[in-house]
């Protein structure tokens, strides 16, 4: 190896590119396999329900809190801005649109990634380093089908439900703040019905399903390819959260550009 700083830099960048391509390839293969196996029998309905329970119950409380305070603080800011133009009647629709299109799906996904995506990575990587995944393999029990498929399906189903909760709670939070700030409660609600279309809500829920896929598949991938003991478990958990965050935000941009 040359000690020339330029060659070093090129080598460093090359390594990063190679490892990104490597991981992206493996990640895609694993995700596709997990989805294909979801279609093929035998189906393990019970493990899917078990995972749905874990995803939903574990996250419901944080999702409600996040939705409530996001709606509330967003309304505070909107009222402050809109008062200058005497556009208080538009506060309700603005809050509702923002919650259903963006804030609900994205913030729910980020919170669930922190709670559930990280737990998936930690659980699978602990199974990996204690050879439990090898044990499944050697028993002829495909670990992708047994461990990863149910987690991904559960997240795809549960994220839209949690997002719907966050949307509703967010609007309620906004409503309470609006009343507290002396806005007309009837106007806040009725203008929402006039202006927010059901397509806003649907598109937000579709986003949520995609985010569910991302956070579960990334969490499982990071767990599944863990190396090296307890330290590896920590690394894969951190990587799962960071990578899923970035993927969710990038995916959000792409989907928003396509949808609206």
């Amino acid at each position, binding site marked *: 190896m040359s000690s020339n700083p330029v060659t070093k830099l090129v080598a460093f960048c090359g390594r990063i590119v190679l490892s990104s391509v490597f991981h992206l390839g493996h990640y895609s293969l694993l995700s596709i396999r997990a989805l294909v196996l979801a279609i093929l029998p*035998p189906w393990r309905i019970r493990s899917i329900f078990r995972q749905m329970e874990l995803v939903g119950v574990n996250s419901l409380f944080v999702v409600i809190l996040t939705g409530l305070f996001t709606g509330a603080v967003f309304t505070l800011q909107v009222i402050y801005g809109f008062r200058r133009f005497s556009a208080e009647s538009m506060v309700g629709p603005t809050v509702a649109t923002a919650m259903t299109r963006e804030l609900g799906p994205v913030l729910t996904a980020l919170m669930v990634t922190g709670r559930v995506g990280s737990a998936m990575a930690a*659980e699978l990587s602990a*199974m990996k380093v*204690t*050879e*439990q995944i*090898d*044990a499944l*393999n*050697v*028993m*002829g*029990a495909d670990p992708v089908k*047994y461990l990863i498929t149910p987690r991904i399906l559960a997240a795809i189903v549960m994220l839209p439900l949690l997002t719907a909760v966050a949307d509703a709670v967010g609007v309620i939070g906004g409503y309470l703040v609006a009343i507290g700030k002396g806005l007309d409660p009837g106007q806040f609600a009725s203008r929402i019905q006039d202006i927010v279309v059901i397509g806003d809500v649907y598109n937000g829920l579709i986003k949520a399903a995609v985010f569910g896929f991302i956070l579960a598949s990334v969490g499982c991938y990071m767990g599944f390819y863990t190396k090296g003991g307890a330290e590896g478990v920590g690394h894969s958990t951190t990587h799962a959260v960071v990578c899923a965050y970035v993927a969710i935000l990038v995916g959000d941009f792409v989907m928003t550009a396509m949808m609206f």
Partner: protein
Amino acid sequence: MGAPTIMIRDLRKKFGDQEVLKGVTFDILAGKINFLIGRSGEGKTVALKHLTGLMTADSGEIWFDDLEINQATRSQLDHLRLKMGLLFQDGALFDSLSVGENVAFPLWFHRKAKPKIAQAKADKLLAELGLEGSASRRVVSLSTGERKRVALARALIMDPEILFFDEPTTGLDPLLSAQVDELIGQIQKNTGATVVVISHDIAATLTLADQVSMIHDGRIIASSTPAALRANEEPNVRMFLAGENA
């Protein structure tokens, strides 16, 4: 098809710069008890993981009768694995399941038996291993020796034709060790399975084995009956036998 012969030919494996297997060649006799011995860190577990398809060799061949596992399709490999039982050195128990669920898992997963029957079979195996009434215990509450026996029960529950045991008696007290050794001998006699045992227990090796193979410095340096091994003049074999007897 009866229990298979396993032929290992020139198996090589490197981890980074560390060459663990440097051309391992030997046969595992069908329907016999085959011991694999060698010092700690010589690659016994690594060799076993190659035999079960959990690790892929850099080069070399592993034949189960006329199936070479590196060229086997996934479904051929799955089919072969249905006939295999493997006891991992550290147990590899599923810590999200209870002891009973762990043992019954292969039956449950492959839908080979109704849950009640699977559980009854698991209970019976656990009782044979001195763990009666443990089925509902959590895996985390087990001692090392208990883990080992639960894992042993799980390896046995499908009545496999090929059995791999990675140090089945390490961590057990002498009484239990003797019991497990006897059980292995019995199972082999009853089922005619091909059995591979990794062990550090020289006394058990020399009494139980039909064939003993010794791995040293990445190669098999002896592969013979226990009697022939005792008479082996290879210095490393001599040293190993003497050291373990002392």
